[in-house]
């Protein structure tokens, strides 16, 4: 089977976001139904995750009816109502060519806003999202070919040494689907995860630390007298 041929040292990465959005019901709230919430797993750029995920299982609190909810097709989401916060376990199952293992995600459902975010309102939901990346290492050739041009995937440039059949034009037919979350009704509440901001912060922090390291090195060498070759090899 060609499917079992694996690409060594190649990693395919799918940025995902999972979380919950919960609305307070306000006047309509009852003791056991104070909030309406939605738990979901989406592509970080709202692309369709159905390309890899076959099924998602949301494990709710045992006090719910049928607490194990299976979602067989994208978008992988589930809406419920309730009054309590609990941890939702999300298990993702992948298509057979992607991976035969499953992946567990855990999310703490949040219904009540933090105090400093103002009072509870029916207009503004409580949104908690987590960004993560699913990484498939040593993927099968078939999987690689199938997703290498998919917008949800981060696929490395393939090395010249690897001889792969050119992807056929039929590989990626954007059949009419509602798997992506680009026009999601809750889309306006989705959080923005900016890698660039994070990198900028990290770069600034590293610059400070490095400056401090340099200062300490100078102070050390001042105490030591003439700098020893082993102590300060970078001339900082």
């Amino acid at each position, binding site marked *: 089977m060609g499917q079992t041929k694996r690409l060594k040292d190649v*990693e395919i*990465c799918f*940025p995902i976001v999972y979380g919950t959005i919960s609305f307070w019901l306000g006047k309509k709230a009852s003791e056991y139904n104070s909030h309406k919430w939605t738990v979901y797993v989406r592509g*970080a*750029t709202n*692309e369709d995750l159905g390309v890899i995920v076959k099924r998602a299982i949301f494990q709710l609190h045992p006090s719910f009816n049928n607490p194990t909810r299976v979602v067989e097709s994208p978008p992988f989401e589930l809406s419920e109502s309730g009054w309590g916060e609990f941890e939702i376990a999300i298990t993702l199952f*992948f298509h057979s060519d992607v*991976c035969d*293992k499953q*992946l567990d*995600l855990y999310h703490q459902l949040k219904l009540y806003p933090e105090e*400093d975010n103002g009072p509870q309102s029916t207009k503004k939901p409580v949104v908690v999202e987590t*960004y*993560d*990346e*699913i*990484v*498939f*290492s*040593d*993927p099968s050739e078939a999987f690689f070919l199938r997703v290498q*041009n998919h*917008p*949800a995937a*981060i696929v*490395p*440039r393939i090395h010249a040494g690897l001889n792969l059949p050119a992807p056929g034009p039929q590989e990626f037919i954007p059949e009419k689907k509602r798997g992506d979350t680009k026009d999601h009704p809750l889309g306006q509440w989705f959080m*923005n*995860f*900016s*890698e*660039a*901001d*994070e*990198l*900028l*912060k*990290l*770069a*600034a*922090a*590293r610059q*400070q*630390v*490095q*400056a*401090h*390291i340099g*200062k*300490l*090195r100078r*102070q*050390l060498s*001042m*105490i*030591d007298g003439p700098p020893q070759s082993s102590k300060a*090899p*970078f001339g900082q």
Partner: protein
Amino acid sequence: MDAKDILGLPKSFPVTQEKKSRPQKEPQRKPDGISREVYALTGGMAPLMPTVEVSHLKRRPAAGKEKITWQWLPFTSSARSDNLQLYHWVRVVNGVPPTGDYQFAKYNKSVEVLKYTDEEYEKHLTDPMWTKEETDQLFYMCEHYDLRFIIIADRFPTSRTIEELKSRYYYVSRALLIARAPSAADVANHPLVKDHYNMAHEVERKRALSAVLSRTKQQELRDAEILSEAKRIMESRMASKGTESVDLPDDQTNIEITEKGTRGDSPSPSSNMHPLSSAAPTAAIPEGSSTPASLRMLRLYLRTHALDQMVQAASSSAGPRTIKRVEQTLSDLGVHIKPKVPTKAVCAEHLELRKEILTLFNLQKQLQNKEAEVSATRDTSYAEPPGTPKRQYRGDIDRPFSPEAIGFGGERLGKRDHKRRPPGRFGDAPPSPPQSKRPRKLKASDG
């Protein structure tokens, strides 16, 4: 015929005998010195309070037999040479006044100051710093004031310090002893010969003492703080001997990473969520350190799990306290302890930052150790004037990055840190005043 006959048992077991054979309770003997009633109360138990028999106590001295009077009587003292007649009250027993020398006369000690002849002086005792007249004067006064050098220094005609006077006196006495002894071995154990007077040491000792005694309370507090800090450093250095070896290889990678340019391939064709990703430098990850092999074997993992594992591996040599401090520093720098957008590049940068912070801590540790050494040698030699401030920049060392210094630190974080610590100094110009003191201080201890 009864049952006993059938069983063939002897019949001779009269009931009365059993009653008699009951053991008689032997009453314990009452110890002496305890009254019967008290003993009955305790019932032979050990008493709670120790009781002492009166007969065991010391007998009161038979008073009344002696007749004691106090009388105002004249007395003589062998310590006096002027025959001055003094009186004092004396306890007289049975009308017989005490005889003998005045009881405090034995404390009238005088020092035997050696005398030298002119010949001896010429031969052994000449000193370019001292004339014979001065030496004579010194020895006269030594005898006159019983070696009370403070008084001697006070009365001495020429201006000499106590140490100079002492030094001269002991040098002369020592030289005389050695010169007069038949062999050096005879006087080798004489205290004056064995331990000769070290003037330089005495001067230094007094200077050091006065330095210690003239310190202010703040200086003392600061010293105690530094000492406990030094102790802590020594302990942590003992505990984590291995960390030093970890930090060295890091240095190479640090530099390498920061100098990496933008990588050619863009991370994702769909970059609407990475609005700046083409402009932001995407750090290339050194091949070996990208992902733990154990995770790759799984064929499927989450980026955050990989990061957790790599963070753990990178800080495996650090103790839980150090890891706490790293995280504190991260939040001081305005960086999330766990990245909010853990992409491959962010994770790599995050990991490098953590490693650099560990390197920083190691350097701080080294610096503190070095300073402890320097100040230890300084403390023993007391070469530094007591007023010199010690290590005002301590706060800097502990928390190099204060939230105020960082523009993009979260407000929540900043607020919390405000309460805990006064504003740090990192925002100052790099050579902030406390730091610039260092070279001067070092020079002071060198000189």
